[in-house]
């Protein structure tokens, strides 16, 4: 039987009417993902920095969890990884029926000089500030040279379109 050596871990912390949920590991067919939906919780904030992988079954696990949360709650995701952003763009029902605020997310850049990829944390505000959803200019953390965006901007930033 196949198992996952980096199973999903769900860390929850309640502060007043807010529930903070930090996910780490892999979201896939082995994952169990449930959050409390009891009265008194008005806002959900998901920190996805350590969510390393999400496969096509994990997408369904995520969408099912989102659907379990009643409508009318404040929903936010922070530090979304590349795969998470790809899934936001790809699946029409990925966020259930919620209007979700993206606080921050990683974007793929590439350093020609170092011949290596770089993940850069962005906010929707700084991308919108470019005027037309183009990648903000970023420099390499290793050599300080200008990075190139390592994707198709219109595709990667699609989740920011109304």
């Amino acid at each position, binding site marked *: 039987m196949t198992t996952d050596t980096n199973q999903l871990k769900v860390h929850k912390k309640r502060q007043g009417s807010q529930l903070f949920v930090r996910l780490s590991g892999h979201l896939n067919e082995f994952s169990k993902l449930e959050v409390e939906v009891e009265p008194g919780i008005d806002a959900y904030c998901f920190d996805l920095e350590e969510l390393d*992988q999400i496969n096509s079954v994990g997408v369904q696990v995520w969408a099912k969890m989102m659907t379990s949360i009643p409508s009318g709650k404040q929903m936010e995701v922070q530090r979304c990884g590349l795969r998470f952003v790809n899934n936001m763009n790809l*699946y029409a029902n990925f966020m259930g029926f919620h209007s979700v605020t993206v606080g921050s997310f990683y974007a793929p850049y590439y350093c020609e000089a170092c011949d290596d990829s770089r993940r850069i944390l962005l906010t929707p505000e700084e991308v919108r500030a470019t005027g037309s959803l183009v990648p903000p200019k970023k420099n390499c953390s290793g050599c300080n040279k200008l990075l190139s965006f390592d994707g198709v901007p219109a595709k990667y930033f699609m989740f920011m379109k109304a």
Partner: protein
Amino acid sequence: MSFHVLQINSQSGLCRYANASHEAPLISRCGVDQDVGAERERDSIDCILQKPDATLGLSVDTVYADYEVQFKRGDKIVLYTDGITECQNAEGKDFGDSGLMRIFAKVAHYDAANICKAIVEKSGFLSRGNTIS
């Protein structure tokens, strides 16, 4: 289940497609006055892009929009699933959309069979003991 269907008119180059939450196919545009077999720049890579509709089977009421994109002589298209972008190399590093686009840009002037071969080799799929039959 995600799904992507497209129909290309080989005479006019007009492509009609619909997308049920599937990975958007990549296109390498052959530049103006460029030889079909000439090497291409990284920014020649684009994708067939529209906001996807819902996955198949979710609701009988789902309406799937269809869209059009125009191809020109020498353009190349790669259709793929997340099975390729989720590949990891021997060091556990993701191939990802970025890896796929980079290798496609390098080999877009090849013929179709050799484009496929180059992508599979670069993806790390074979390095993890997998085979293709």
